[in-house]
């Protein structure tokens, strides 16, 4: 199953709405099948079950018709409507075009976003998309509509890696407080100075939840390809001749320090940080993410 999903990660498939939807559905259905749905029960439109009245229960929830038939107090329970808004922010800077095994970080992120959005739709959550770089910010404001998902996928497919991470006032629109929400941010954390750190810090408020998916390639983490190469910065075009054998140790240490540092400042801000290795399948990443959230709420 996992291999099949990886085979699906091809540009020609990911660049069409149907294709992306298909991939997202396969990913999600793959691990959702057989699992229970909502875990919390409360006031809602959809009936769930009856239970006996206990002192302290809201009298408004008493089912009087049931009392008339059986002369017992029953409380009518239904599934709680989860009115959570999920905002996806995608870092569409040029550096996200970094490829490993033919799949770029951007494409990988797109599949993850599509899968999560599909999940959100199933759970009747509203979701929106913000694709950000320094040239433009395209938005799909969170709505609960039938067409939302298609619009969402269209925008997602249109996203291209250009320029650098955005700066300035345009970003403030993203930081507008809407209500209870989850913000899921896909990025490689490559920026100038601490742009992204500042941005993420400001996203976090006491009432929302921020999740950062840090997408990293395997080679990027370990500098495994041996030899002398010219490294070119995707964003600046700057070139450096690098002897990977000589530098590997120092490089790995620097990267690990950087990851550790990122993780710790996010932890301080109560931001959920996930390092995503592109060598892992999209499905396994999703399973891991959802399981960790489940553990968090129990």
């Amino acid at each position, binding site marked *: 199953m996992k291999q099949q999903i990886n085979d699906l990660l091809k540009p020609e498939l990911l660049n069409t709405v149907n294709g992306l939807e298909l991939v997202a559905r396969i990913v999600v259905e793959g691990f959702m099948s057989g699992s229970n749905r909502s875990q919390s029960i409360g006031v809602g439109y959809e009936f769930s079950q009856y239970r006996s009245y206990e002192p302290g229960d809201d009298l408004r929830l008493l089912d009087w018709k049931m009392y008339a038939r059986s002369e017992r107090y029953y409380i009518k329970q239904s599934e709680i409507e989860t009115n959570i808004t999920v905002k996806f922010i995608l870092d569409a800077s040029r*550096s*996200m*075009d*970094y*490829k490993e095994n033919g799949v770029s*970080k951007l494409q990988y992120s797109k599949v993850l976003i599509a899968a999560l959005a599909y999940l959100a739709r199933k759970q009747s959550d509203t979701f929106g998309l913000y694709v950000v770089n320094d040239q433009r910010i395209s938005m799909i404001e969170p709505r609960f509509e039938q067409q939302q998902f298609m619009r969402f996928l269209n925008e997602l497919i249109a996203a291209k890696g250009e320029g650098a991470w955005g700066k300035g006032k345009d970003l403030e629109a993203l930081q507008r407080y809407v209500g209870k929400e989850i913000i899921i941010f896909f990025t*490689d954390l*490559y920026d100038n100075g601490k742009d992204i750190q500042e941005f993420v810090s400001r996203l976090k408020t006491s009432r929302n939840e921020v999740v950062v998916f840090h997408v990293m390639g395997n080679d*990027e983490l370990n*500098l495994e*390809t041996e*030899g*002398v*190469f*010219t*490294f*070119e*910065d*995707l*964003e*600046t075009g*700057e*070139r*450096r*001749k*690098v*002897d990977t054998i*000589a*530098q590997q140790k*120092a*490089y790995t240490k*620097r*990267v690990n320090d*950087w990851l550790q540092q990122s993780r710790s400042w996010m932890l301080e801000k109560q931001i959920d940080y996930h390092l995503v290795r592109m060598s892992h399948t999209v499905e396994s990443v999703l399973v891991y993410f959802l399981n960790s959230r489940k553990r968090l709420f129990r």
Partner: protein
Amino acid sequence: MTFANPSYLWAFAGLAIPLAIHLLSRKEGKVIRVGSLRHVEESNTSQFKSIRLNEILLLLLRSLMITMLVFFLSGAQCTNPPGAGEVRWLVVEAGIGEDPDYRPQIDSLTSAGYDLHEFPKGDYWTVAEQLGRLPHEVVVISYSRVEGYNGERIRLPENIRWISAEQSPKEFQAMAWQAGDSVFVRTARSGSLLTSYRTGFGVPDSIEIIKPGRITINISADDKSEADILMAALNVLKSEYKLPIEISNTQSQSPMTNAWTFWLREAKPKFSGDQQVVLSTPCTGPLIERISGNVLHLNRKLDQDVALNENLVIELFKILYPDLDTPNVSKQKDIRSMPDGLAWSDGETKNTGGNVPSRAGIEKYLILLFVLSLATERFVAIRRNQ
């Protein structure tokens, strides 16, 4: 350096191949596009420099290989360049050193680094054979006198350049003899092509005047015409060269003292004289041939044809006055020279020894160098890829 097939030198254009490889591979190498350079450093360590050095070494080796290949194809040969320190000989025949015609040549060669040596007048072929054993270049200037070539003709060794000096013709008095109260002088004119003589009255310079002794000749013949021809021939000697000859046609059957007897009869002579010329059975060979101490055979019957064609007068002169024949002074001063075409054999010669060919094929060195550079190139290339 010379080439057997210079047209193959076009293959030097192949040098563009390693050069192109070098320039193309120099161009940055493989480019890896990454998100950020923040974690990598520019490698400019000594190792990196050694890699660049390796590339230059590879270029040189590859160029060398192609050069070797081209040299091999074009059949390169090494000619020993006239360099300083090399031993070269100039060998001249005794006497040429003083010849004003050849002095400048000798001087210019000696100033160009040739060691001057002299060899005495003598057997040129022996000299050439000895010089041919020398391991270096030899220039020989000789008069190439005809009498210097004796024995089996050899081929001129390859390290020798033989220059024949030409001499201007010279005249000298070969001999002089007294006839009566006058003196005959035989004057020779000798050049590189021929030596000619003429005889006439004259005053001898420094040569001895020979006084020929009186000879009495007794002719006894069956056939009178034979006796007449002989008489005529003797009369030529007597009248033209004033030689003191006395002829007594006595038909005597008895020996005579102090006289020559020409016995031209069928019957054998019954006596023996001082000198006796006997008509023998006609046969080939010289006209007059000495058989024993004082007996000579006349091998043909004398008639007009024989007398004219076989130089009867000269033959008679030779036997009657042997000391007037070509004297030593004439041999010494004869300067006829042997044309170079005749002096040296064209055919295969006996190996004259350790002469070093001045032009050497270098194929085996080229192949060796090619193989060596190929091995080194592979070694360096593999190490570089590691």
